[in-house]
């Protein structure tokens, strides 16, 4: 599925300073029954965001009007657990284009990259400082520069570089997905398959 290209993103950020946020929190299993990729943003962090009778929980960050933006900043080890791409869909559908943390679970990171959400992994210290910056002023802006692989904490004038494979970077910059590439090497694949019988 094609997605919006990613180049440079300037935005405020939403802080979620909790560690080990798992995919069951990002999107609980009972919302995985869809047969189309629609409406997942409404159920992002469902049980942290709403009571069982659907009233919003006032103290949860997504219900706090002071905070918004296209960047989600989360505690260490974000996205562990299930392989459900629905977690990444929910984040994208809610309006986030980038997730910043000091550590990501593997499958979640891949899923994000495959649908056009940029996972930005930074040091613990840089993450701490971002949390402090947002706490001081929720309107603080951050700049995610994909071509330069750099994240800037603008109000502190500090930056850090992040890793991404050049293949995935190219895909994000152009909005390509893997199937486009795989289709272009179909002949290699079919001859490989002949060598690898069932």
């Amino acid at each position: 599925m094609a997605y919006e290209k990613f180049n440079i993103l300037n935005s405020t950020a939403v802080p979620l300073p909790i560690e080990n946020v798992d995919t069951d929190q990002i999107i609980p299993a009972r919302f995985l029954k869809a047969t189309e990729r629609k409406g997942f943003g409404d159920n992002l962090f469902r049980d942290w965001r709403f009571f069982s009778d659907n009233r919003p929980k006032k103290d949860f960050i997504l219900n706090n009007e002071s905070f918004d933006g296209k960047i989600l900043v989360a505690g260490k080890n974000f996205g562990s657990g299930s392989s459900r791409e629905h977690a990444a869909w929910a984040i994208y559908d809610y309006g986030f284009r980038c997730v910043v943390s000091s550590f990501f679970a593997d499958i979640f990171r891949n899923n994000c990259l495959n649908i056009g959400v940029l996972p930005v992994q930074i040091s613990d210290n840089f993450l701490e400082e971002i949390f402090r910056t947002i706490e001081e002023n929720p309107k603080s802006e951050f700049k995610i520069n994909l071509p330069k692989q750099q994240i800037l904490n603008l109000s502190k004038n500090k930056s850090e570089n992040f890793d991404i494979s050049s293949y995935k970077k190219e895909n994000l910059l152009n909005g390509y997905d893997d199937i486009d590439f795989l289709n272009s090497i179909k002949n290699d694949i079919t001859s490989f398959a002949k060598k690898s019988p069932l």
Partner: protein
Amino acid sequence: MNKTLFDKVWDSHVVKSIKDGPDVLFIDRHMVHEVTSPVAFLGLKKRKINVLFPDRTFATADHNTPTINQHLPVADPLSAKQLKALETNAKDNGISYWGLGHKKNGIVHVIGPEYGITQPGATIVCGDSHTSTHGAFGAIAFGIGTSEVEMVLATQCIIQPKPKKMRITIDGKLNNGVTPKDVALFIISKLTTSGATGYFVEYSGQVFESLSMEGRMTVCNLSIEMGARGGMIAPDKKTFDYIKNREFTPKKLEFDRAMKYWRTLKSDEKAKFDKEYIFNASEIEPMITFGTNPGMGLPISKSIPKASSVIGDPSTYKKSLEYMGYNEGEKMIGKKIDFVFLGSCTNGRIEDFRAFTNIVKGRKKANNVTAWLVPGSHKVLQSIKNEGLLNVLNESGFELREPGCSACLAMNDDKIPPGKYAVSTSNRNFEGRQGPGSRTLLGSPIVAAAAAVTGEVTDPRIFL
């Protein structure tokens, strides 16, 4: 040669390496279930491409399915729609489909090995993180997202960076009452839920060699809970005996030919791992979890650690204990429980039902406990009946349900109510995993059995 088992299997499946980037990996076998596949099939339709090799994909219904009255139409309209979508997609694309009521139906990671879809040296993927289970046979098996499911359907390949390699060695003999589940929970408690992120794990040493294939599957299944992409164990005589004569394994001459290759599937003596851990079997006790991730486990006789003594953010730790309704320093033994769940792709195989039955035999289910006993597949269900376990379970006041994922992720009606405690043989104790507000204590089948007859957390060794 100085290759690891993982290198051997991975390298032999690389169709193409992308410069400074990931590999294009050929996938031998692909398992599909109803939850993570519909959007992938939809994507194919939009792109107007067909499934490239339909006979390499196998579909089953498990996540959404009810565990009672499976012969009736599925009541939940959303679940019914998702199940129908899988059936239609499989049929339209010529994929074998073992739907609800089919005699081969069951949890995707239980049936793969049962029918020989899982084989040594193969690459196996599924849109489900516990695909790591199949690594027990010396396969590279891991979970993928829906975009990747679409890739595999369209091209039988995925694009993956090669993970780093970790080896976990445990020698020695396991103590009485220590099961494969305890071995896995022990490792995760040592490494934490992110300790193996970025790695593919090989388990080696006497402990894993001594385990049955079922036990090895339990261990490999839980690899993902320490963040690993997957785990694997070198195939040996037990592996070959297990897979011989199963429906989808090679036969006769071809089996012998395959054996020649399978025998080479072990890490060379000089193979290098990026990280190694060594433990001794004597360190391991029956385990239970007390928090909201699988790394928050401890020996069942111990007390909940103080926030000051654990690694990680103390406020996250406290939030977790608050959710569980527990306090630092409390003992786990004697904690009241409300539900027991025996099942899932972690512990829903015949050996698990034997172990559970062995403990409850001649005893009665505690009155305060609701027990859900859910076989991993129809084949497991049949064995439970054939071996006479069902009678024993019934006499002790337990009933058996029909196969499926059930309360492992509570997508069907099997939900633990808010605030209630469940001792569960599944794999995740995340907040709300077993139903909104549910509180999960992960343990082995015998820890579950001991709790089921006493109504509280109990050291199973007193019944052995």
